[in-house]
């Protein structure tokens, strides 16, 4: 779901960069001393996950993990994903430097939405927690596809067509990510519940 260099028009790239910069600024404020190591580890996880590709349909798919990065970091997902995407662009020419802002938005905004939607569900019951984890993975990919399609619509044909293509290619990924995220949330809850946003109820 990386958008390559030279695909998008100038205004889209500019708006994307500005919004990503704003999100990163907010994110850096929320990243206090204790959260830095975690943000770096999640950034590294995201960085590696996007490199492992499995051929499927007309293109390739890979784990994205943006939903769970968002759930665990909140606004901190912006700087974490910015660093990971920057390195992917520089080292592997995935995406591109000019499209970096847009690509950060594609990944971080769904993560942030997941954070606000699902963090309260983590502490009610085990079933809800699993559902929240699955929702993170699923929605993270779904929203990322929609944002990517919205960014592409200006340079490509119709929104529905582009969105359909991207989403169709990622339907399996949504489910895989959902399962991965659900098991991840369950695992973290078992070994270190304080990592999940909100903390255990007192």
């Amino acid at each position, binding site marked *: 779901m990386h958008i390559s260099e030279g695909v998008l028009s100038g205004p889209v790239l500019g708006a994307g960069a500005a919004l990503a910069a704003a999100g990163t600024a907010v994110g850096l404020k929320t990243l206090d001393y204790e959260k830095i190591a975690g943000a770096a580890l999640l950034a590294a996880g995201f960085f590696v996950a996007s490199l492992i590709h499995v051929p499927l349909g007309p293109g*390739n798919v890979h784990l994205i993990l943006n939903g769970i990065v968002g759930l665990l970091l909140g606004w901190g997902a912006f700087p974490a994903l910015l660093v990971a995407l920057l390195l992917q662009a520089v080292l592997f020419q995935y995406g591109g430097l000019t499209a970096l802002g847009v690509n950060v938005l594609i990944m971080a905004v769904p993560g942030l939405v997941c954070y606000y939607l699902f963090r309260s569900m983590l502490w009610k019951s085990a079933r809800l927690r699993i559902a929240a984890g699955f929702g993170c993975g699923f929605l993270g990919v779904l929203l990322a596809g929609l944002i990517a399609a919205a960014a592409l619509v200006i340079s490509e044909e119709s929104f529905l067509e582009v969105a359909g293509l991207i989403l169709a290619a990622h339907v399996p990924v949504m489910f895989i990510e959902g399962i991965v995220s659900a098991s991840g949330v369950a695992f973290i809850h078992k070994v270190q519940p304080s990592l999940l946003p909100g903390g255990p109820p007192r």
Partner: protein
Amino acid sequence: MTERSEKKRNGTGRVRSWVLRLAWILFILAPAIPAQAHRVSVFAWVEGDTVHTESKFGGGRKAKGAVIEVYDETGKMLLTGKTDDNGAFSFAVPKIATLEVVLKAGTGHQGSWTVSEAEIREAKTGMSTGSKPSAPSGEAAVEALTPPSPTGTAGPAPMPVQELRNVVEEAMAEQLRPILGRLARLEDQAREPDLKDILGGIGYIFGLAGVAAYVAARKRNR
């Protein structure tokens, strides 16, 4: 004092938990197959006055039915077409100029390849001089190369073997030079991220985390 040490212990607990999380991430990723990259590349070469292009996704999968657009240096689109089932698309040289071949594989995937003016000229002249003395068919070319029958008196004397070898080698080197150059570019473009790159990236991330931790610690101590 005790409060402080407690805080510190809390910090190490957090770090330990992050290590656990990394272990979890690696555990999840381990079974996935490192198969393909998420990039499309297009490769173009000139033969005579036809430009051939080949498009594929990183890892070698052909980009089928992708759009190819050809631009000149001024950014004017000269022609457009679609790749076939082998990811190939060929077109006649639209004009003698540096051509930019852009591949649009949809949903934001794009790659490009530049064919230089010199390359086009070379291919064109190479073909015309090559085909002038004889018909372009292979059989005729072979015939032209074989020395005339011994009964013929007007034919040139056969070349000494060593000299012939030198001439052939020279011609081969001349012909292969641009191809080798293009091959190098192609290999560079198709390079997949290897372990070194990935570990390098992870190293950068941790280095940045160190910088961030340093800045945050300074802020906290002030």
